[in-house]
């Protein structure tokens, strides 16, 4: 695929963000029906097509800006966005290997991995990085392996440890998280970190998904989609900085909802890690303002129907309470049935 990376974007005020027509055409629209409820929407991560599902881990035109936003968040709030429990080092090396091999295989024009036994050389032409290190030796890298590679990888990444028939959060690089704290969630089990999600527990979604996850095997990844909304194209919406981005929710009107409200879709290609037997839970986030999405008439119609029929508990949990009505009012004009 052709990679035309944008040069001058910003995910913080003053925002500079938009999707090219190519990026918009490949946007992973998450609604297969006119209404939405949680389900066990896991499927084998079989690579298909030319878009976001064509590769193990997707890269797009926002890569440089996203890595820059990550670096900024890590510098501004050390210890808040990247955490790792001591026993996760084997998993860290596993995920470094997984991402490096995938990127080098799928995007050879910009990533390169050369191996001589345990001596590896990694080249990242997009960020101007070339480093040689010894696989398995933390002292040979400028920082921990998981931090090293996730600073160069688009999307958030969480490492889950398998123990006692469930999965525990053991490490995370999460500069794009939607209103949670990775320090707080560290060490939580599968049901615990999904605790706040409304309704899904009663539907048995998490129990079934966990069973599915526990039988994940190397080389047979699975994927699912999740979604929420954000006001302004701000990626860093952690619980810690809620006072910074919370007020944005008061700025949405029916007139400006197209530009201000962004759909935020998470593609999660889950992989079993070979040596640690851990699981990597990537959260690859795609943003698009509603105004871009409604240029596709069927998406516009569907967005109106999904949002107007959304269960109140989901509206509240996804943080839309204050601007939900304005958003639905804006979307109504794109739904022939109600115009």
């Amino acid at each position, binding site marked *: 695929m052709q990679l035309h990376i944008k040069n001058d974007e910003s995910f913080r005020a003053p925002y500079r963000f938009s999707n090219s027509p190519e990026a918009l055409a490949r946007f992973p629209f998450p609604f297969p029906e006119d209404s939405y409820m949680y389900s066990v929407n896991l499927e084998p991560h079989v690579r298909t097509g030319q878009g976001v599902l064509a590769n193990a881990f997707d890269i797009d035109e926002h890569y440089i800006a996203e890595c820059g936003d990550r670096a900024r968040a890590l510098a501004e709030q050390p210890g808040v966005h990247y955490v790792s429990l001591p026993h996760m080092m084997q998993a860290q090396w596993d995920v470094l290997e997984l991402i490096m091999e995938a990127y080098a295989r799928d995007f050879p024009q910009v990533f390169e991995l050369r191996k001589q036994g345990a001596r590896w050389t990694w080249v990242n032409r997009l960020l101007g990085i070339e480093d040689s290190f010894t696989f398995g030796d933390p002292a040979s890298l400028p920082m921990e392996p998981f931090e090293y590679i996730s600073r160069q990888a688009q999307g958030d990444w969480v490492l889950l440890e398998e123990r*006692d028939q469930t999965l525990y959060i053991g490490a995370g690089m999460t500069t794009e998280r939607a209103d949670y*704290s990775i*320090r*707080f*969630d*560290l*060490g*939580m*089990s599968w*049901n*615990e*970190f*999904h*605790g*706040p999600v409304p309704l899904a*527990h009663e539907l048995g979604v998490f129990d079934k998904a966990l069973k599915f996850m526990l039988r994940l095997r190397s080389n047979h990844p699975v994927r699912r989609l999740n979604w929420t909304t954000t006001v302004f194209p701000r990626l860093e919406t952690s*619980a*810690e900085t*809620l*006072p910074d981005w*919370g*007020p944005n*929710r*008061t700025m949405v009107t029916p007139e400006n909802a197209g530009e201000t409200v962004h759909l935020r879709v998470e593609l999660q290609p889950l992989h079993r890690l070979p040596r640690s037997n851990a699981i990597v839970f990537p959260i690859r986030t795609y943003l698009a303002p509603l105004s871009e999405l409604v240029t596709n008439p069927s998406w516009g119609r569907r967005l109106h129907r999904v949002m107007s029929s959304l269960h109140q508990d989901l509206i509240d949990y996804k943080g839309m309470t*204050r601007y939900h009505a304005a958003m639905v009012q804006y979307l109504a004009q794109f739904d022939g049935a109600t115009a």
Partner: protein
Amino acid sequence: MLITGIKSRPVYDRLAPFPDALLHLVVGQGSGGSAMSRLLAEMPPGAEVEVMYSTESFTGQNHLAGLKAAAPGACEGFGSNAALAEALHVRLARAFMGTRLYLAGSESFIGLAMKVARQFDLNADEVLREHCGSLVRRVWCVHCDTYSENITQRVFSCSGCGKPLVVRDHYSRLMGAFMGVQGDAEVPGELPEASDLDS
């Protein structure tokens, strides 16, 4: 038994003797003493038992005398939860497989004791935890990384940064605390209604 709708909060147990244990370590604090006494009365004859009890208590309950009577020569008292936790660490470090641990007390105490227990890879089939006493919460402020103890209100002022925090019904086992986030983050001064934390 304390079961709430909060899915990340532990489901607490009712203490009862494990049938296959070689050694029963009964550890608690404050109002947990009543559950400990009840448990000791249910132990099978000849059971090997050791008791550790902290008199630090929000509700002021003190069961030390009764526990010493129930486990003569095998009951040690501590003036603070921290002192007990240290001693528990020392005891577990020389314990053998076949040991079972019973914890009784406030949620904060149980969280503290579980931090010690986790270092010895104790699993659910080796530890029972009975919640006793008041429902006060330990709350962690996500903004300033400070813990506030004994919180009883849904909205309160952070002891670290002074922000008005809303207590979310989400519990971290590693921290042994609930999360507090700024309650008026969207519109300054617009806070949720005050209410008691009733669970």
